């Protein structure tokens, strides 16, 4: 699961992470995705940022500068109402996809 060929899923992962954890910086999102997916999913870390900035332009997330636990400055992202709606839609369409693929696999 690398690069942008699964851009839609990357968006979904980020939105889901933010909905679970609340305020989080980019690095934190990467760590969360790794942990939550039990190290099955690893993203090319840099590719997170074009996605985050695009989502911010679309109004799904907002950002502000803050301090990490280790007192470093980092940019934190937070889900907006529009973002939650988007997450719901993305989750549903992903479920559909998974259901469809699974049905295919069973049939064959």
């Amino acid at each position, binding site marked *: 699961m690398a690069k942008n060929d699964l851009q839609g899923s990357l968006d979904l992962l980020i939105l889901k992470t933010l909905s679970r954890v609340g305020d989080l*910086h*980019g*690095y934190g999102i990467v760590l969360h995705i790794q942990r939550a997916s039990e190290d099955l999913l690893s993203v*090319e*870390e*840099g*590719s997170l*940022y*074009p*996605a985050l*900035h*695009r989502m911010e*332009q*679309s*109004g799904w997330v907002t950002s502000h500068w803050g301090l*990490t636990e*280790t007192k*470093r*400055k*980092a*940019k934190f992202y937070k889900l907006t109402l529009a973002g939650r709606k988007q997450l719901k839609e993305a989750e549903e369409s992903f479920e559909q996809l998974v259901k469809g693929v699974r049905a295919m696999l069973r049939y064959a």
Partner: protein
Amino acid sequence: MSAISRIANLFRRTRIRREIDRELASHIDLRIEDNLASGMSPRQARRDALVRFGNPMVMKDRTTASDTALLLESIFSDVRYACRQLFKNPGFAATAILVLSLGIGASVAIFAFVDAALIKPLPYKEPARLTAVYETVPSCLLCNVSYQNFLDWRKMTRTFESLEVWGYARYALHSPEGVQSIDGTRVSDGFFRILGVAPMMGRDFHAGEDAPGAPRTAIISYGAWQKLFGSDPHILGKVVRLDDLSYAVIGVLPQDFHFSPRGDSDFWTALNDPDGCQKRRGCHSLFGIGRIRSGVSIAGAAEEMKAIAAQLEKQHPDSNNGFGAVVLPLSDAVVGKIRPILIVLLCGAGLLLLIACVNVVSLLLLRSEGRRQEIAVRGALGASLPRLMRQFITEGVVLVTAGAALGMALAYVAMRALLSLVPTNRMSANPYLEGLGFNPHVAAFAACIAVLAILLLSAAPALRLRARDMRGDLAEGSRGSAGQTWKRLGSKLVMVELATAVVLLVGAGLLGKSLYLLLRVNTGFTPDHLASVVVSIPKSYTTDAQAMELERVIQNRVGALPGVRSTAITNSTPVRDWDGGTYIWVSGRPLPKERTDVPERDVSASYLPTIGARLLHGRYFTDTENDPAKPRVVVINETMARQFFPSEDAIGKQLTYVGSKEKVEVIGVVEDIKEGQLDTPNRAAMYVPFNQDSWGSFNLVIRTSQEPGALLPTLTSAVHEIDKEIPVSHAAILTDDIRDSNSAYLHRTSAWLVGGFAALALVLAVIGLYGVIAYSVAQRTREIGVRMALGAQRSSVYNLIFKEAGWLVAIGIVSGLLCSVAAATLMRSLLFGTQAWDALTLAAVAAVLTISALLASYIPARRAASVNPVEALRAE
């Protein structure tokens, strides 16, 4: 919203970039921190963080692109870069822009004519439903309409919403300054309504205003209103005297009104007092114009008219025997003749544009050779393929934009220049040309060809950009086999150019030859030192005897002028148009199946000797035979003699007019005189003694011993000395008349324009060839140096280069010749007296191109042969 904020972000992109930098850096720092905590060495921790992160530069660019409308910015910087590149190479830029502007300018200028003439030739309401209606007989396929037939058509037709007629008229306008001869038109009552034209002042003709006995009224043109009446605002209701009759002015036509089948006409009057011809069904003097009902096809209307004509033929066998009717779209009648020429010209301009583009493409390719390394470096630094392509497309856009801007200026100049070449009398026959200029159509066309040129210009170098080549380019550096790709492609392009140039040259050659043959067509008379004027006989000369006396006096007075060798009278000078003629046949023999209508010229006894006709048998008639009391005689032409008396002597035979049953005796046979246009075949024609009663005017022809133009003013004043009231007009010198005649004019225009295109094409193709060979020589300098160091002679170096050029030229010329035969076959209708595969023209073109090509390759070949082997090898 996002788009707006992204464009807004363009203006604070430094700040945004800085913020992104900080954000990405903080990510990497956090990862390093964690790595250190998990026990990596500082170096390892940093490396691992960067590997996980991906290329920071790329990520940064992509993140910035998410925030800002970067595309706009980079397009701007591409344009700036492209301009800078062009300024750095002014020679290349100037050549490319000039070549492009020539191609674009020529195409746009010609298209403007095409647009004016073919796309919107008829400035009337719903022009698609307007048709021209003719009567037809084998001797005259699109023939005038008889007024009596027209009246029946009008009653019988179902497919036409309305049918109208118009006919030529010439009026003597009496004003305080004297008498002027004015062009006029007589029309049926609904003429202006059928066109959808309303007078800008006053009223149109009422329905029924063309009935016999209705009050005489006239509608005047805008030009006449200004010229003759000083834009008098109270012109309506004024009475003017035309031909001694009073007409009330009831309307003034709009300024932009033109009716090109008629040309300029100042007075439009209703056909309300039919002349002798219009009362007779067998006399054809008018032109029909019809508006078909919506939903009816032209073919449907033509079908109906054919049936109506057949019915009238049955009802009036005497006058209508053999007469059918034809319906054509009015636009065909107006621009049918020039349509093929314009299409040929447009194709010619298109080919020129093609050569121009190909030339610029090969220049661009040549330059992109020099930029391989630059491009490879940019690719290695992370520029994506689409990004590099965009750079090429931008350069194409900048070049074409500059070329198109200059091209439009050239097109404007060319249009003005071409218009000024159109003689004024032709201008009034093609009034749509006055609307010539830049309009939305022309702008759209220019935009289309600019886009095509951009595609062509950017496609070629962009295609070269294949990712796998780039690594090689980077390693290869500036020298080596880099030129291979270009040489292959470039030489193919040169072949295309040469072939296109051949097509244009052959086209120009054939048209030029046609013009040459046309102007040397045997006209059957000697036109030099001939001049003519049209003299109208005032209505005050009421009897035939008075008119004949006037003609005699005028001939005597003019004949006595110094420099005048002889004078003559005719109803029409030669090289005009064939007309339908009069139905006539050999007395006492059964009529052949096909009608035998023969155009008749009413001439004075001195006419045939004066114009220098050549008498083959018998004699000319004498002055005394002009007397109606004497037995009637006729001189016929060779074609008529052959057609009427195939195997016997025509002299002394009797002919009978089928309509009037009058008999005439053939007394002489002359060599064919070209009465119609130069490019028409000869037809039967006959010359009868001038009989003034059917003609209100005549052509006075004089043969002079000096330059005839100088005599024309004296001629007019001599006539006015007899009677100040006699209108004299249409002064002409016959050689000029022939030179400016329709067919000569059309042939000359197309020959000159295609010739111009061909000359430009030749220059461009030769420059292209020179470019390829010169480049090849530059690439092979080292090879040539080695050859010469090994003992090659200069002559063998010449051979080497000429062989390379020879192949290109041979293939280009041969394929061009094949294409041009095909192209010339398509423009057959424009050729006169020559075939599409005219060997002389093809050979001449091949020779011209071969010689030019040899010259173009001689210069680089000489440079190659003078290579100093030592220097060539050391330079590497």
